[in-house]
C-alpha cells in the first residue's frame, strides 16, 4: 500500500455527511468528481494523502484506498508510489466558462422564488421535479 507522506500540498479537503446514507467511500469519489467538474481540481493536483484523510475524518484507511483505486480505475487519478495520488484528467471542459452566467441566472431565479414566498424546501423540491421532468422530455 502506498500511503504517502504528509506533504500538505493537497488542494481539496473531504467532508463526510453521516446522515446522507451514502457510504463514505462513495462520498469521497463523488467529491473528487465534483471538484474536477467545477475546475477545483485539475491535472497534476495532488489528492490528500490517505493518512491525512483518515486523520481528519476518523475513517478506515481501506475506505480511502478503495475510493482512490476506483478513481484510478476510471482514469481520473494515478498513484505514484511513495508520493501520493495525482489528478490525471480534467472533467471541467469548455462548459466551465458558462458556469458564471448560468449561476447568476440561477441566483436571480432563486431570489424571485423567495419573493414569491417559497421556502427553501419548496425551492429545492421545485427545482428537483422540474429538472427530472426536463430530463424525461429530453429522453422521449
Amino acid at each position, binding site marked *: *500500500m502506498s*500511503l504517502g507522506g504528509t506533504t500538505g500540498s493537497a488542494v481539496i479537503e473531504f467532508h*463526510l455527511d*453521516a446522515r446522507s*446514507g451514502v*457510504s*463514505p*467511500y462513495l462520498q469521497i469519489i463523488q467529491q473528487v468528481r465534483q471538484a474536477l467538474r467545477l475546475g477545483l481540481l485539475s491535472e497534476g493536483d495532488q489528492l490528500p494523502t*490517505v*493518512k491525512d484523510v*483518515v*486523520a*481528519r*475524518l*476518523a*475513517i*478506515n*484507511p*481501506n*475506505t480511502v484506498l478503495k475510493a482512490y483505486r476506483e478513481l484510478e480505475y476510471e482514469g481520473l487519478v494515478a498513484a505514484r508510489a511513495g508520493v501520493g495520488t495525482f489528478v490525471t484528467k480534467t472533467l471541467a471542459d469548455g462548459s466551465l466558462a458558462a458556469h458564471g452566467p448560468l449561476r447568476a441566472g440561477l441566483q436571480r431565479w432563486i431570489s424571485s422564488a423567495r419573493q414569491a414566498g417559497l421556502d427553501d424546501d419548496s425551492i429545492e423540491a421545485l427545482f428537483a421535479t422540474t429538472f427530472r421532468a426536463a430530463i424525461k422530455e429530453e429522453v422521449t
Partner: protein
Amino acid sequence: MTVVLETRGLGKRYRRRWALSDCTLAIPAGHVVGLVGPNGAGKTTLLNLAVGLLAPTEGSVEILGGTPASSASQLAKVGFVAQDTPTYAGLTVADHLKLGAHMNPGWDAEVAEARISRLGLDPAQKAGKLSGGQRAQLALTLAIAKRPEVLVLDEPIASLDPLARREFLQTLMEVTAEQELSVVMSSHLVSDLERICDYLIVLVASRVRVSGDVDTLLASHYQLTGPRRDPESLPADWDVISASHTDRQTTLLVRSESPIAEPGMTVDRIGLEDLVLAYMSQATKPARTARHAVEAQR
C-alpha cells in the same frame, strides 16, 4: 489469508454462570474489526480471553496463530487497551512512558513522545489529573508505542464526550494507516463503528449472530416493505433476519447473495446501524455461528 484471532467452541464460566459459551469465530488480518453486542453478550470476556488475561474454561483461542500471552514474543505482538482505558492515577505521563519502555522490548520512544507532544499532554502531569479523553489517548499511546501487530481495544470510547471520541478515533485511524496493524475493537456505538470498521462481528448471548466484511454485509441485505404477507407465502430460500407485520403492511429484512425483486414490494438498501440492530434484536434463533465462522475464514 492470515487470521488474527481464532476461537473454537470457546467458553468461560465464572462459578456457575457462563459469561461466554461455544464461541467460534475467525477474524482475518488487516482489518479494523468492530465487535458489537448488547451489554452482557460476552464481549469483554472474549477480548480478555484473546489477550490471555483469562484462561478458557473450554474450547480454544489463538491470537496471531499462538496461545495468548504464552511467551514474551507473543505478548509483544499484542497491544491491549482494557475497558475504560485504565492508567496509573499516581504516575505522571512521563512515568507511563518510562514504564512502557522498560516493559516492552520493541518500544518506540520516538512515536510515544511525538504522540504525547502532539496531544499537548504535559509529561509532568499525573494521570489521575487528566481528562477522560486525555487518559484514553495516553492509554492508546502506550499500546501503539509497543508496536504491536494487533491492537485489541475494549469499549475505549464509550465514556468519552463526542469531541474526545472523534479525536481518539482520528489517532487510531492515523496509526492504522501508518503501521500495518489489525485492530479489534468492541463498542456499542454503531455510528462510530460505521466510519472506522471494515469488518463486523455481532455477538449476542455469546453467540456470533453475523460476521463479515462490512461492504459485503451491506450489499447482501435488503429491506422489503409491502402489503401484508403471510410469512408462509414468502419464498422458501429467503433468509429472513427480521419480520414485522401490521394489519396492512409487512416489513422484512432479508439476507441474500443475489439481488432480490419481489412483485408488489419495495426493495431498499439498509444502513449498518439498522442491520446490527436487526441481528441484535433477533430472538434466540438457532446459532448461525458455525456457518458464519466458515464464511469468515474464506
